[in-house]
């Protein structure tokens, strides 16, 4: 009972092979006894069967040694000075590495109390003294092997549990004969309850399944019992805390040798994250990244579904196409991120607007998507949004929504720390009135939206039949105008410019006419805006230039006294930079001397971009043609530019002539324009002269030339043959 050091024995306690030494490959034993002779004997016994042994002669030393060497087995004497064997055993079991190490206690054979106590403190087994040395080695090897099997099993269980936890995979077993059910810890966790919190059973499980999925689970279980397989399914689990998880269920059955079912087992796997990932992917494919609204693809699918439903149940659908009126300006001035911010705010307002409770008359009715889905707002791209309203009871409900959206968007937005204002143009197409397939409805809603834009923005327009007709008319008119160019349905009329003092014709203004084969003469007021809109104005202008030059050249060739012919130049033609080429071509093809061609350009065209204009005018002037400023007085002219432009003629707009000489203001303006033109060394022409009084006033104030019905309306070229030979015209009044 004394420490071995007191025995004076030569072998010191704690000696033994170092675990790092070569040869220390067998299982490691820790021998704890205060009796040197016992340690010696035990060591010898164990070394013979391949153990590496370490010794300790007291409890404290034993703990230290245990932590160093992590033995595979511990042999422990009960009675020791200081910390006894029981206390040491308890201490070892509390260590994380000591929980499963086999601990053998050396107890007296005659002392059953000590054996009981040994088990109580967690000893694996006991060895009674006096020790039977012959069998001790075998005994210990046996214990080690049994413990290995046990700890392997424990490790398997642990790693399986880890794997299950990582995979969110729970398992269950149902022993049918005894009707006992076991759930793994992870199964409890998936259900959102603490392990063993409730008694496991199939009905307990069903309680956690979403009510809508319960039938399916029961059906699967029936199939498993009747047939071989369990149909794997994903069901919703409703946890105690209200959270919903998606769980994949699998099951198999186990049969005995007679073929009857003894056991069912299966798995439950939480696949919520997988589902969510799928959902995110779906979202990316079907939703717009900036606003989170459905994208075009999704919207079209929704529309198609809604159409199927609407056709079957004879319902009305409303499709709204929305386009922001000032988006480009905001994007350009505040930047793209501000633009995106605005799109997001707009999408929120639109969504709010359709969700407002008083929007729909049929509020509360069941809708086709089962959710609050009477309407779908989508961003189709750019600043283009679309809204689908299903279950429309009246067409005017759609208009109501459109009005609400207009109102909502008129309110200022706060974007990039600034207040910005936008408005929206809305087009409405209705099923079945305006189309019965998705493509047509979207196209027609878009057309209606463009019409709304044409109407001055910030308004809504239905795609009505009448509107449809207008658009078609425009379209066919364009086609016919193209054809007119090709088929020579166009012709020129000429209106003379007279020097009133002599009645001499000094020039002719060429004016285009369209002789439609069915409609007859079509007014330029009808087709010129269309030609401008479609770009046809340029080929049209070239046609006029060429034909006016040819006509003039013909007259000159025929020996008529020469006059200059004036052609009106369209703004687009003037701006786009091909005018010089067009003029050169016309002169070259006709052979007309440039000085007999006058180009009439309006005041507003000249002042639009004065520097470019100056360059263009100089080029033209360099070619030798005459240049006139048309419609003078209607725009704003900078005198300094006017002075620099190489002009020959100034034409006073007819609006100043109309009320002459009685309107004092017009009279003053006319007088001033004439005076100014003369000071700039320009020849002055007054347009729209219809009365002798007007003529008298203009003559009195030195107007050089006049043009108007007083002398002649525009006439076909043939009509001028006689006139030109005399080259003089009397006033219409005078001629009468």
């Amino acid at each position, binding site marked *: *009972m004394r420490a071995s050091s007191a025995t004076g*024995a030569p072998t010191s306690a704690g000696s033994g092979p170092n675990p790092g030494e070569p040869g220390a490959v067998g299982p490691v034993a820790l021998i704890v006894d205060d009796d040197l002779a016992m340690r*010696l*004997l035990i060591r*010898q016994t164990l070394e013979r069967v391949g153990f590496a042994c370490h010794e300790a002669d007291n409890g404290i030393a034993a703990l230290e040694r245990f932590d160093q060497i992590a033995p595979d087995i511990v042999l422990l004497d009960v*009675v020791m000075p200081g910390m006894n064997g029981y206390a040491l055993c308890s201490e070892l079991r509390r260590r994380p590495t000591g929980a499963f190490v086999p601990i053998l206690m050396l107890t007296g054979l005659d002392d059953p109390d000590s054996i009981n106590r040994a088990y109580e403190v967690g000893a694996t087994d006991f060895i009674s003294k*006096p020790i*039977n*040395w012959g069998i001790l080695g075998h005994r210990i090897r046996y214990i080690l092997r049994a413990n290995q099997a046990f700890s392997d099993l424990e490790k398997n269980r642990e790693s399986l549990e880890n794997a299950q936890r990582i995979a969110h995979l729970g398992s269950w077993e149902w022993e049918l004969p005894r009707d006992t059910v076991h759930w793994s810890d992870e199964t409890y966790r998936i259900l959102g309850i603490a392990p063993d919190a409730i008694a496991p059973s199939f009905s307990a499980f069903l309680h956690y399944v979403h009510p809508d999925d319960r039938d399916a689970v029961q059906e699967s279980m029936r199939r498993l019992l009747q047939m071989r397989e369990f149909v794997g399914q994903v069901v919703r689990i409703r946890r105690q805390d209200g959270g919903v998880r998606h769980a994949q269920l699998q099951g198999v059955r186990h049969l005995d040798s007679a073929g009857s079912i003894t056991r069912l087992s299966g798995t439950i796997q939480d696949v919520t994250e997988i589902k969510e990932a799928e959902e995110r992917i779906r979202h990316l494919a079907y939703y717009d990244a900036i606003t989170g609204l459905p994208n075009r693809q999704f919207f079209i699918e929704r529309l198609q579904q809604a159409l199927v439903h609407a056709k079957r149940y004879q319902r009305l659908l409303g499709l709204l196409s929305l386009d922001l009126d000032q988006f480009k300006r905001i994007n350009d001035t505040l930047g793209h991120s501000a633009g995106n911010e605005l799109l997001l705010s707009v999408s929120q307002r639109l969504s709010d607007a359709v969700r407002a409770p008083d929007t729909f008359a049929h509020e509360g009715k069941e809708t086709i998507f089962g959710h609050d889905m009477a309407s779908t707002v989508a961003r189709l791209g750019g600043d283009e949004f679309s809204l689908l309203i299903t279950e429309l009871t009246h067409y005017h409900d759609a208009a109501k929504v459109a009005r609400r959206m207009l109102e909502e968007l008129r309110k200022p937005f706060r974007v990039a720390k600034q207040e910005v204002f936008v408005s929206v143009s809305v087009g409405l197409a209705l099923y079945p009135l305006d189309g019965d397939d998705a493509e047509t409805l979207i196209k027609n809603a878009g057309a209606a939206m463009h019409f709304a834009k044409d109407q001055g923005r910030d308004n809504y327009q239905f795609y009505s039949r009448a509107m449809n007709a207008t658009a078609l008319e425009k379209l066919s008119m364009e086609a016919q105008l193209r054809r007119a160019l090709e088929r020579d349905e166009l012709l020129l009329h000429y209106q003379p410019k007279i020097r009133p003092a002599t009645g001499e014709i000094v020039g002719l203004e060429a004016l285009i006419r369209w002789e439609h084969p069915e409609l007859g003469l079509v007014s330029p007021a009808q087709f010129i805006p269309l030609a401008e809109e479609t770009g046809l104005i340029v080929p049209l202008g070239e046609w006029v230039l060429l034909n006016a030059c040819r006509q003039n050249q013909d007259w000159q060739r025929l020996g008529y006294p020469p006059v200059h012919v004036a052609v009106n130049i369209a703004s687009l033609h003037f701006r786009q930079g091909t005018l010089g080429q067009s003029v050169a071509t016309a002169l070259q093809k006709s052979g007309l001397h440039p000085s007999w061609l006058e180009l009439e350009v309006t005041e507003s065209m000249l002042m639009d971009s004065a520097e470019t204009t100056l360059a263009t005018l100089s080029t033209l002037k360099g070619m030798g043609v005459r240049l006139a400023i048309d419609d003078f007085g209607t725009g704003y002219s900078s005198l300094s530019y006017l002075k620099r432009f190489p002009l020959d003629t100034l034409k006073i707009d007819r609006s100043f002539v109309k009320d002459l000489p009685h309107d004092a203001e017009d009279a003053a303006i006319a007088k001033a324009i004439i005076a100014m033109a003369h000071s700039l060394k320009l020849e002055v022409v007054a347009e729209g002269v219809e009365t002798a009084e007007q003529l008298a006033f203009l003559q009195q104030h030195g107007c050089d030339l006049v043009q108007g019905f007083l002398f002649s309306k525009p006439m076909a070229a043939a009509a001028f043959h006689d006139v030109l030979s005399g080259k003089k015209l009397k006033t219409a009044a005078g001629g009468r």
Partner: protein
Amino acid sequence: MPDSKRAVQSGREVLDSTALEAIRSLQSDSAPRLLAQVVQIYLDSTPALIEQLRTGMRTSDHDAIRAAAHSLKSSSANLGANTFANLCRSVEMAARDGSMGPDVPAINVVEHEYAAVRHALEAELEAMG
């Protein structure tokens, strides 16, 4: 060996030879003199334990008596000194129960038996050489 012979002659076995044989059988190349070592450790450590027992009895220190008797019992039984081990066991039980009455073997009885064990073991050592 006269003590050893006497023990046999008196019809009372001082040492159970099977115990010594069991230990001897554990001997190997790495521990060729294991038995001799164990016997020597026993002989070296026992006098002090007997002294502890004697002092304990004189001062009625039951814990000291019990501890010494337990050790003597255990180490003696290990070497097959069963009679001596049984004596020690009786002392240990009495000390544990606190009933050190007249039937408890007297210290001189313990010492006398140990002398027999010692003689027998010394003879064994001598025989081992």
